[in-house]
């Protein structure tokens, strides 16, 4: 149940690749990383969820919080996700209307 977080730079974007389970226990680690990026001045963030096996409401809350933080600096937060079981969670909670969701990191960083 470990959460892996790997940050890389693609042009002006910070690409945060997450692996494992984002849940009530692990989500604070992702929250800290996203807050750290914003405090360093990174306001264009892509969170890659392709290697995430599980996502719960606490994880969703962390992503919504990060979106608000980057938006406050005129930035954006996009997601990369093609897994049906993860997309379903965004659909049920109405967040597909809140986050741009892309099929690949290339697609997310080409805008």
């Amino acid at each position, binding site marked *: *149940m470990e959460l892996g977080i790997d940050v890389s730079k693609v042009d002006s974007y910070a690409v945060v690749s997450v692996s494992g*389970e984002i*849940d*009530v*226990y692990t989500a604070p680690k992702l929250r800290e990383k996203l807050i750290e990026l914003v405090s360093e001045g990174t306001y264009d963030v892509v969170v890659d969820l392709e290697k995430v096996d*599980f996502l*719960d*409401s*606490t994880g*969703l*809350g962390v992503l*919504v*919080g990060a979106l*608000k933080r980057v938006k406050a600096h005129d930035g954006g937060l996009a997601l990369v996700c093609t897994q049906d*079981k993860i997309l379903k*969670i965004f659909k*049920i*909670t*109405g967040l597909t209307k809140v986050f741009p969701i892309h099929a690949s990191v290339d697609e997310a960083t080409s805008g």
Partner: protein
Amino acid sequence: MTEVEIEIPSRSVYVGVVRLALAALARTAGLSEESVDDLKIAVGEACANAVIVNEETAPDVPVKVHWSHEEARVVVEVEGAGRPYQSTEPTGGDGLTARMEMSVALLESLVDSCEVTERPDGAMTARLTVNL
């Protein structure tokens, strides 16, 4: 009828243990992989909610998860000891209230029924039913 009971300390690190156990039980009961995933999320939400309120008001009381499988349905009851979560922030935020709202949306969508009942002592039980 098959029944299994699991008790975890009221700490978020143990919620994943319940999800794993329940997923294994659901597969044993013959649920499809999609239904196993749905139940895993729903039970994870109910358990996390119980842990969050227990941590606030009854940290030493465990969260109990009761699984029962009959021919036509699976029922999972998640019992916390904490008082129901009281919202102290406006809706649409990114704090605990927003999290709870998303949690309720997931619970209501992913199982056939989700009833939350308050016991006489004020603690809550979430009862999730999946029809087979």
